[in-house]
């Protein structure tokens, strides 16, 4: 039996407001409530609400034979609770059908797996608890790290926490001649099964769908069915992993992306021998074909599929190092606001905004960033971090005094 595994990443960072040097030591609220709220509302209208409604219809229509999975970051869930309870409710309805799987991740969509095992564990558990609370006691079995970041070591930590499966990128430089369409095992702990993204077929939908200069434009379900049939018979699982915002936000409604998804299951059932499965079903059902060897972390970002989008220049490394220097001190502080900011400051997007890879020719890679330049992003973040450090230091002193 061959199967398609859909996984959608649902994430919105908590963006930092313009925070000036003069604010350091004075203003301890860092978050841009207005823009965070308006972005959540905008994406809710364009993507989350219509796509959730469509998926619910499809799941009901095919009686559970069509199924998907989500990883919704904790920082995004927090914003749904504050700004979009209607969106949260629509996700709850989806999960209640029993045909939607939720994955576990780090609560703040952080890079903590690269910094500290303790902090990584704390973040994973915080997300687990949040999902349990918001989704009627739901317990995820499969893990997805921020931006599909994975290495043998990270896999080992995830296995130690009791997860049975984990998702990552089917990066070419890791796979070589191997196919992403099998289940693999972690190199250190074979109890952890690894699902790899088929980036060819995933990106046909996520990135190329509306690209008119693409030779295969327009993408129809028939065409997609032919490509699925072209996958060699012995290869069992096609993992289609993408940002959920693909639907209606990256690919606008006018491109026909909703119609494509609506028509997809019927085509799959009638013209191919594929079914749909969720990650945990794949982990349970498929036999692992081999160990996968990933000594250096990979991710799903950019051509390089590495960490350079977040930790590739001096600005990012400096911000990252200064942030995690605080871990031991923060751990000792019992203060909900310190803990909240400590989490939200770790969100990977803050480091992504400082990326200069796309900046070399002056053409800023601005789609995902609200800053004019990576330098502005760095300056603003460091101002906030400087204030945060002052707060942490003063709390520590307070505690020592008592």
């Amino acid at each position: 039996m061959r199967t398609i595994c859909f996984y959608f990443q649902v994430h919105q960072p908590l963006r930092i407001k313009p925070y000036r040097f003069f604010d350091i030591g004075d203003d301890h609220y860092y978050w841009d409530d207005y823009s965070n709220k308006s972005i959540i509302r905008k994406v809710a209208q364009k993507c989350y609400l219509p796509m959730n409604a469509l998926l619910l219809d499809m799941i009901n229509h095919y009686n559970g034979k069509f199924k998907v999975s989500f990883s919704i970051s904790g920082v995004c869930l927090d914003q749904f609770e504050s700004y979009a309870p209607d969106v949260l409710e629509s996700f709850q309805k989806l999960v209640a059908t029993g045909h939607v799987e939720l994955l576990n991740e780090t609560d703040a969509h952080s890079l903590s797996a690269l910094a500290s095992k303790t902090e990584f564990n704390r973040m994973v558990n915080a997300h687990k608890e949040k999902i349990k609370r918001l989704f009627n006691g739901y317990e995820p079995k499969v893990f997805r790290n921020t931006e599909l970041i994975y290495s043998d070591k990270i896999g080992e930590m995830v296995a130690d926490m009791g997860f049975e499966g984990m998702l990552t990128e089917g990066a070419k430089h890791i796979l070589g001649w191997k196919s992403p369409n099998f289940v693999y095992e972690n190199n250190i702990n074979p109890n952890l099964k690894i699902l790899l993204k088929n980036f060819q077929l995933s990106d046909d939908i996520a990135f190329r769908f509306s690209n008119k200069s693409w030779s295969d434009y327009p993408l129809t379900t028939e065409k997609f069915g032919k490509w699925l049939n072209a996958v060699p018979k012995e290869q069992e699982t096609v993992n289609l992993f993408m940002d959920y915002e693909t639907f209606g936000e990256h690919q606008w409604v006018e491109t026909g992306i909703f119609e494509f998804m609506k028509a997809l299951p019927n085509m799959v059932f009638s013209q191919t021998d594929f079914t749909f499965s969720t990650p945990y079903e794949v982990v349970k059902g498929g036999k692992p074909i081999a160990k996968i060897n990933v000594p250096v972390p990979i991710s799903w970002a950019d051509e390089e599929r590495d960490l350079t989008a977040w930790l590739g220049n001096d600005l990012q490394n400096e911000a990252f190092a200064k942030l995690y220097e605080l871990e031991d001190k923060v751990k000792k502080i019992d203060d909900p606001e310190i803990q909240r900011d400590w989490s939200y400051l770790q969100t990977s997007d803050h480091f992504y905004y400082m990326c200069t890879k796309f900046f070399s020719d002056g053409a800023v890679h601005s789609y995902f960033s609200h800053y004019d330049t990576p330098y502005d992003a760095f300056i603003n973040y460091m101002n906030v971090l400087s204030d945060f450090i002052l707060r942490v230091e003063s709390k520590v002193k307070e505690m020592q005094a008592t």
Partner: protein
Amino acid sequence: MKVLMFGWEFPPHISGGLGTACYGLIKGLNVHNQEVIFVVPKLYGDEEPLADFVNASDVEVDYREKKFQDTWANLTYLEINSYLVPYLGQEEFEKYTDYTLHHRSDIEETVFSNKFEFSGKYGKNLMEEVARYALVATQIAKVKDHDLIHAHDWLAYPAAIAAKEISGKPFIAHIHATQFDRAGQGGASGPVYEIEKAGLRAADHILAVSHLTKKVVVEKYGVNPDKVSVLHNAVLDASIIKSEIQKHVPEKIVTFLGRITYQKGPEYFVEAAKKVIQRDPNVRFVMAGNGDLLNKMVERVAELGMGTKFHFTGFLKGKDVDDMYAISDVYVMPSVSEPFGIAPLEAVRHNTPVIISKQSGVAEVLRNAIKIDFWDVDAMADAIFGLLHYPSIAKMFKELGSEELKNLKWEHVAAKLVTVYEKLHNQKP
């Protein structure tokens, strides 16, 4: 004495120090009962009525008159291939160089229009505006009675030269900055430099804002030193500014405030900061301002791993500037080349001790400041550390500095200027 003065900007609408200096000078001249006709390309109407202001945008010029055409013909050699605008760096400059080279307007286009609306800014049509400004000057020199012509920086030299053609009165070229200060390591060349040379050659007398600048004028422009007088700048108000602002960080603050360009030496400040932080982590450094080296400085700060102790504020104006001076414990001006540099005097008014480079004109008038070579990062770090840790020296500088400031008055400067005026006037009856 009736002085026909050509400037380029005037408070409150200014983008550089030139307008402020003109303002101070005119206030000083008023004290000495000098009559000033002050011409600017564009007036906004909210200028303080200190002079007989002439708005060049309002002056009618009949472009068909032969004398205008001669002036124009002399000016159309202007080309742009150098640092044109004193307040921009190379990258920003290149953005509009291309435009200007390919969009040169010709006089024929506007032969029947009588007035030209100047922007009075430092924009992409700057060279054209400078040339048109000279045309207007011809007209003004004809209708406005005057004894002397006084022009501020190269932007106004063509106007002064044109005015002198008409009235034959002595022309004083005032140098606030030269192209050598602006161009940096590359040295000066191109049309701005050519205009400066032509202006200094045509001038009957030259005023330099410092001995440093006089030296440049003599050595690089081949001017006879006897023709050059030094006229330092002053401060409009020497009173100590009491600020309400409270600083919110426990650390001491060391500040750089100015354009982040080669001329201002920001990289030496960054390197000195690192040396200080290594010895004393309880210091914050602030680089306030904007410029083409900003991103390079941000990268260097990250590379040196001091991002939580070294902050960038971007361009500051108004109250933010005052607040920045007020919360600073040390102000540093590490300029590579600074004809004068008024900012340290502002710092002194806020009771903030200053460190200035020996390569700045202000070092000639401010005795109670630490002076270092801009490139001597170790000396800069030592000076910062000393001012932060040895209160006696900081206190001494505060007291003596503010005392010294009281003598730096524009009316004293103007008194000296009047003697220059008189000498020149008597030479050429």
